[in-house]
């Protein structure tokens, strides 16, 4: 039932070095290299802050956390989810030249993309974390919870990626569809607005597993809430991840012979 994940675990060293090479490849030929991986998200955070806080005059503190910091932390988490989701769904399709010519365990490709996104994320997180620590004194024991939420995010992405990657490899249309879903998720996940204001709709918004991660990041920075404080939501999240895992494993086995031919 978990064969592809066993394979990933057994090949973890390979995944690690492939993801580093992915980073090299991404920034090959640029002079500033991974600095671009930092400039771009920081710029986007600044733009959103400007639009919502100055432009729309909506940027009051959220439950006591300054809006800019609250937005930045949410965005940091979101960038990981966004990149992971976007890259994993294409992981077979974008590596078709390798898949078609080199015999190697292709099941690990989604994991490579996730780890690559994670390394980029770590750089951004380090910068934001340091900035926050100096300006807002946010350092607390609850910061350690980030390790848990990162792990949760990685597992969620792995589950979703294992489901989407083989489907996208089989059908290009599905890839387009997922791109659209991602835009939808971006606005529907409470990243620059707070779910607290919604009342009944809050429950529905919370069904989105991405919210669990984004909220978790904020809890760890500003609110000092542990994941054990919301056991039902945690249980729901992991149940969903497990479902994705099972479905992903099934789809991979089922669709691999097809997409090997059609890619």
């Amino acid at each position: 039932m978990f064969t592809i994940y066993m394979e990933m675990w057994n090949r973890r060293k390979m995944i690690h070095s492939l993801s580093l090479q992915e980073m090299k490849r991404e920034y090959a030929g640029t002079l500033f290299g991974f600095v671009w991986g930092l400039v771009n998200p920081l710029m986007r955070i600044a733009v959103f802050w400007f639009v919502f806080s100055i432009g729309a005059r909506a940027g009051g503190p959220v439950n006591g956390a300054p809006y800019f910091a609250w937005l930045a932390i949410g965005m940091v988490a979101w960038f990981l989810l966004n990149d992971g989701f976007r890259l994993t769904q294409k992981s077979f399709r974008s590596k078709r030249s390798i898949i078609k010519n080199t015999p190697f365990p292709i099941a690990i490709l989604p994991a490579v993309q996730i780890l690559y996104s994670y390394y980029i994320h770590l750089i951004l997180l380090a910068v934001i974390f340091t900035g926050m620590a100096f300006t807002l004194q946010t350092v607390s024991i609850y910061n350690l919870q980030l390790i848990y939420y990162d792990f949760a995010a990685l597992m969620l992405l792995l589950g979703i990626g294992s489901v989407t990657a083989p489907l996208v490899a089989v059908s290009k249309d599905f890839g387009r569809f997922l791109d659209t879903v991602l835009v939808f998720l971006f606005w529907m996940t409470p990243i620059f607005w707070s779910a607290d204001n919604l009342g009944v709709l809050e429950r529905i918004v919370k069904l989105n597993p991405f919210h669990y991660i984004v909220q978790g990041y904020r809890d760890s920075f500003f609110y000092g809430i542990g994941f054990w404080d919301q056991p039902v939501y945690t249980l729901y999240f992991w149940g969903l991840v497990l479902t994705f895992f099972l479905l992903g494993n099934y789809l991979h086995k089922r669709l691999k012979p097809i997409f090997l031919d059609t890619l």
Partner: protein
Amino acid sequence: MEIAVSVKNLTKKYSLYQDPWGPIKEVVTRKKFHKDFYALRNVSLDFPKGESIGVLGKNGSGKSTLLKVIAGITQPTNGTLDVKGSIVFLDVSSGIDSELSGYENIFMKGTLLGFTKGEILEKVEDIIEFSELGEFISQPVKNYSAGMKSKLGFAISVNVDPDILIVDEALAVGDSVFRKKCMKKMDEFKKQGKTIIFVSHDHNAVESFCSKAAWIHQGELITYGDSKFVSSLYEEFMNGKKTIDSVRASIDYEHSIEQISYGTFKDEGFTIRLKGYIHDTHQQDISEKTFLVIRDVRTGETATKPLSKSGKGFSVQLNAKEHSMFFKPGKYSFNARISDGSGEPAEFSLWAGKAEIRQHLENRNNRFNYQFSIQKNILELSIGNLDKLEQQVNKIWFDDKYAYIEGVAFVRGYETRTAEAASMMYYMTNLASYERLAFPAVISETEEITENPVYNPQGKVYNFSRFSVAIDLSRLENGLYESHLTYQMHHAPGYELVNLVWASKQPEYPSSPYILANQTIEAITATKYLRWEKKDHQLQEAIQ
């Protein structure tokens, strides 16, 4: 014999959809919306360890699919695959990323092949050296030429030390020095007991490098065996000399000419005796059902002789006198024809790759030059004239029931002062039935050659060099005829020369077909060799 890769009953089917919605419609309606395309059909093959095996086939024949299945890149639809050892699949661009530098690509590909960074670091020096890229190794691969890319790909693949190396046309790109180096490296591989599977559409490469070869045609394994045997069959097929059916027939029978003894004798032409064996698939001797067929390679005309049983195989003897107008200057191949009573008889070239040749030559005053040789594992006879006949048709015209030809013919250096110096004969051969008609050529006097300084710089006398022929058109059947001229010298050295009739003075010949009763007769000189065609007149009009 140890087997490195064993493939059994392998079938690979692709579904081809005309309609892009086809796959979805199929799920919904459960009807079939695709065509099945079989890239491989029931292929069974064993690749022995420590040998290099060639896989031959045209583009699109399924050979690359077979390799991809073996390499594990594609999954077979049916059948089993058993691979012992690690495989490296080498083709020009495999796993090379054009954005990364050559150096980074070594690590990239190494990682994909399952090596750790430390293991790659040990090899990287060797790889760079082998690739001959020098300082280009730190440049992005997108700046490489195709040759450099394939050098890099090859250098990585051979240096990671696989048990089985699959080479897919990759060597076509590199220069000859690098190619030699690769061949040397692959030879080393063979000595280390590693297996090489070499895919190509070039039979020469396979013949020179591989001990065994398989031939795949339209997804089916045609034959598998000795690389020389397989590639000679393949070449015959690719040249269009044979259809796939006749190739199959020659594989169904096991055959070989083992001994060729021939002699050439004064005025007698030659005598040849072939000894060998021919077996069917049940190892039964079938000499008595088989005919030796000698085929004129140019026209397709044949002469046949039954094989007779002798000892464990067959023996057949033949001399040129039996077929005196058949054996004329040209090229001849030796084939076997088997009729088992049902359907078309099978005809194929007898394999002579290991034949022993014994010759007894007595070259004085023979009719022609006879030369037997083994070309690409097949016995070939080529016959040449003893001297060169200069000849040209000057005029062709029709009158009543006759066609007339007038021309000149002479052999340089042999004067013709009287009408008795030589005699000529004009032959017409029907190219469908090979029926031959003879017309005597009358020799008369002309100063055309004697007075022509181009043909006669030494000032010799060739006064009796004009010939004229009257062809009785009623003797011709409908069909296409080719023309020969034989020139017999009556004085020493008494050569007999046989040539196709040369007619290159187009304006001097009739430009339209001649109508005689219900038929048309046309002199065709488009190839500069004179041919005739007779057709029904009405039929021709009806077509127009």
